[in-house]
């Protein structure tokens, strides 16, 4: 991390070749983005490449040729140029994504990669044309390659970043992991869930389907206890059926196991609205996991 900029050696590369090389890198970045390339490669190569080329080109367009001194009374470009590279590295993908929104092009991987690459190439060619390519009557300025000391500086920065990343990872790993243990009871009568009333003729059997999901602990084979009340009193002729608990297949919501069940009871003999309460207590659950469903039952003649 020393004054790398001052220690450049005399090794140079032809500017035309460098331009072609950068165009090739942008093309490769697009190909890697569109192809099913592993995330680490895309994150560590594609994004930095597009940001560096696009941002660096835009910075070159703004600042012109590298001066490396304060001859114009402005801060030396040595710091301004890389920082502007990052600034434009944000503005280029932002602008190219917003541009896609104008003709309502869907923001797919291919569209974003191509639009960003297109803007990058325009900036690259404009910047190379302005700052490096031969001018009237003069030979092109050859571009100096990084020296050994620059490489050492990059290695030093990499080592520092790795150490800081390791410390960050350690700080994350030591955080306590909490696993919430709870059960979730849901009604499986789609019509009721959608808002249709649960109706039954007086004295007929009523069937309610339910699903019990456990989070943080598995359900056991022991039957859960089920209590049913209708209109505030215990229901008549209650039959509870349930499947054995199975590992949950509900992708995305993280339950450990589930069991499905039904509860049947006889509807009251008088018409009217009745509050029907179903309480299920899983055997392996904490005592507080007694969960209830409450449905308004409309009894008709």
């Amino acid at each position, binding site marked *: 991390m020393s004054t790398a900029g001052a220690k450049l050696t005399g090794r140079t590369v032809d500017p035309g070749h460098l331009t072609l090389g950068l165009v090739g890198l942008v093309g490769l970045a697009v190909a890697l983005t569109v192809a099913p390339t592993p995330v680490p490669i895309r994150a560590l190569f594609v994004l930095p490449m597009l940001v560096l080329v696009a941002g660096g080109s835009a910075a070159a367009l703004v600042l012109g040729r590298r001066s490396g001194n304060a001859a114009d009374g402005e*801060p030396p470009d040595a710091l301004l140029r890389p920082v502007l590279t990052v600034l434009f590295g944000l503005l280029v993908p932002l602008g190219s994504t917003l541009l896609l929104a104008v003709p309502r092009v869907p923001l797919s991987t291919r569209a974003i990669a191509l639009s960003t690459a297109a803007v990058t190439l325009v900036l690259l060619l404009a910047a190379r044309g302005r700052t490096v390519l031969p001018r009237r009557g003069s030979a092109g300025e050859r571009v100096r390659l990084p020296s050994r000391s620059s490489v050492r500086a990059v290695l030093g920065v990499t080592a520092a970043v790795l150490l800081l990343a390791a410390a960050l990872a350690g*700080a994350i790993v030591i955080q306590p992991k909490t696993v919430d243990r709870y059960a979730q009871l849901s009604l499986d009568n789609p019509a009721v869930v959608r808002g249709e009333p649960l109706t039954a003729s007086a004295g007929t059997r009523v069937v309610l389907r339910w699903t019990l999901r456990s989070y943080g602990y598995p359900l056991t084979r022991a039957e859960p206890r089920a209590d049913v009340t209708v*209109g505030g009193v215990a229901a008549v002729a209650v039959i509870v059926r349930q499947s054995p608990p199975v590992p949950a297949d509900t992708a995305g919501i993280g339950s450990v196991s589930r069991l499905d069940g039904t509860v049947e009871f006889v509807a009251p003999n008088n018409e009217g609205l009745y*509050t029907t309460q179903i309480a299920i207590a899983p055997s392996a659950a904490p005592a507080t996991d007694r969960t209830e469903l409450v449905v308004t039952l409309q009894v008709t003649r």
Partner: protein
Amino acid sequence: MSSTELRPDPVDRTMSPTADIGPATSRRRTDLVSRLTGWPALVVAAAVGIFVIGVSYRLSASGAPAQLYYLTFWAGVLLALLPGAWLAVTATDRHRRGWALALVGLITFVPKYLRNPFAPSYHDEYAHWHEAVQVLSLGRLFQGNALIPIVEYFPGTAALTAAVTRLTGLSPWSSGELIILAAHLLALFGVFVLAEVHLRSARAGAIAALIYALNPSEMYFDTQYAYEGIAVAFFVWVLALASLAARARGARRFTLTVAALLSAGGAVVTHHLTTVFLLGVLFFVASVGTAAAWRRARRARAHVCDSCRGPLTPEPGPDRGVLIWWAVLGGTAVMAGCWLVFVAWPTVSYLSPYFGGSLRQLAAMTAKRSSTGRVLLAASVQPLWERAMTALVPLIAGLFSLKALLMVRRERGVWSFDTLALMAFGLLYFPSVLFLFAPSGAEGARRSWAFSFVGLALIGAYLLRRFPDWGRPRVPARWRTPIGLVVLTVLLIGGVGGGLNDPYRFPGPFRWGTDTNSASAEARTVGQQLAAEAGPVRVVADQYTALQLIAYADLDVAAPSPGFPAWALVQSGDDPSRELAGMLYGSRFNYLVVDVRMAEQPAFNGTNYGSGDPLAGRVTPMDYLDRLDHVPWASRIISTQHLRVYRLNLPLLGQQPRSGL
């Protein structure tokens, strides 16, 4: 800028920690300082400090005493930050200074990152993360947002996140964190360049960046995944690039102006409030420049006509630096105006209540109607020493500003109009502190600091770069370093303490009524289950459960207000009015999600249903929640230990259920 301004700033040498002491002592001290601020030592200190911050979070998450985890946290931050900060200020090498500043930026990003590295936790983060996920899944910008409706019209954050996600394959959250880190570093370097341009000293630039890094918004608020964190970087760079352009010549002046306008465009499409502040500061600087030019011209005319009695000489032409500021202002105003009119018109109605409301509340407070006021740091576990330092920050800033004002008066004519105008803009911080006491104004006041601290950073840098030469009494050399470190520590601790409160800064056991520590897996899975069974339906829920339901289940949650008092379903012991029932039924808000923990403790943030909550500051009576199980118009269809989901059937309102069989 004339060539005389290019000389190395003589005052920079006096800031050296070894100035004014004997050569042998100086050499020994320099060796020690060099070893302590050598890169390996610096990076190791930063790594150990980061780990200690992690330890403090572990302590707070485990319910340790607040004193312990606060002390551990600050031990970690100071260990990680101070060596880098010291090197940034004292380094004589430009690259070392740059890397030290980058390290400072990284370390000030870490506490918020560690707070929730893998998923959103703050209110605005849920809104922006959900927006980005929606944009990515539907492939279109401008998606509606139930948490912060205005986010729809400022797609900068979502567009950038979508771009990085598509290019890298990282998750939207990781992409967002990467963008925020880049923006955070850019903002610090932007302040560095700004101060270096204006104060003609790289050391002043580093001091300004450091002061900016200490602002109350910087460590937690502007490092959250939200639009302001990104837009602030653009804001700073508009000022830096315009300042550079105002001092440049030829083609570079043009390209720098265009770059400033591009940055302004980035701010316009990303964040409304940043755009407002940007227009304000640009107008202020340009106006000051014009006023100064007119004053100079008038004096020149008076001098020519009255004293010399000679032929009239041509008037001095307009200062081209002023024209740059007007050009950037004009361009920004046109972009902002077009964006507002053609894309983001709802912004007007969104922002107006904040301005009007806070002014009215402040006026009411001055009329001694204390019920509208708020108590700073109320119900906080923040240690007394951190509160004391928080109280010291405006005091120190005030003293610094006063001293700077006196020094600037003696140096009239030395500093450019834009330098003085930007410093004056920093004084906005002081009236904004008053708004902390008005409920609607508190957030706005805090939000203004990310901008006004740019000016305060210039003031501080102007003053501190000349630290030993402030006049009498002179500070002895051996005291300079300790004094500098103590002031830095007080500003750092006090600044962060004046920002977000404990539940936002530290993980902890479940605490009802905060966006962060009220988040539960139960609410998330209940929302996902409801969405699986009923689809993306409309729901009434408290403001904390709503975050989970919207972000993870894509449910449309009601935003209660006095005109739509949906809270009455829960915060009242009576049935909802016919009028409310009609609104709910007509708008298809057919589901109600209740977290019974609102009956166990009052909300930490004061309300469960936003500012109109009739039970603000109080626990919801459990009877109010239990009665929902006994009314015919609500059926509980999903249930966990703490959450209950009801299907509303409001046409049954007014009917009585029967008892018995």
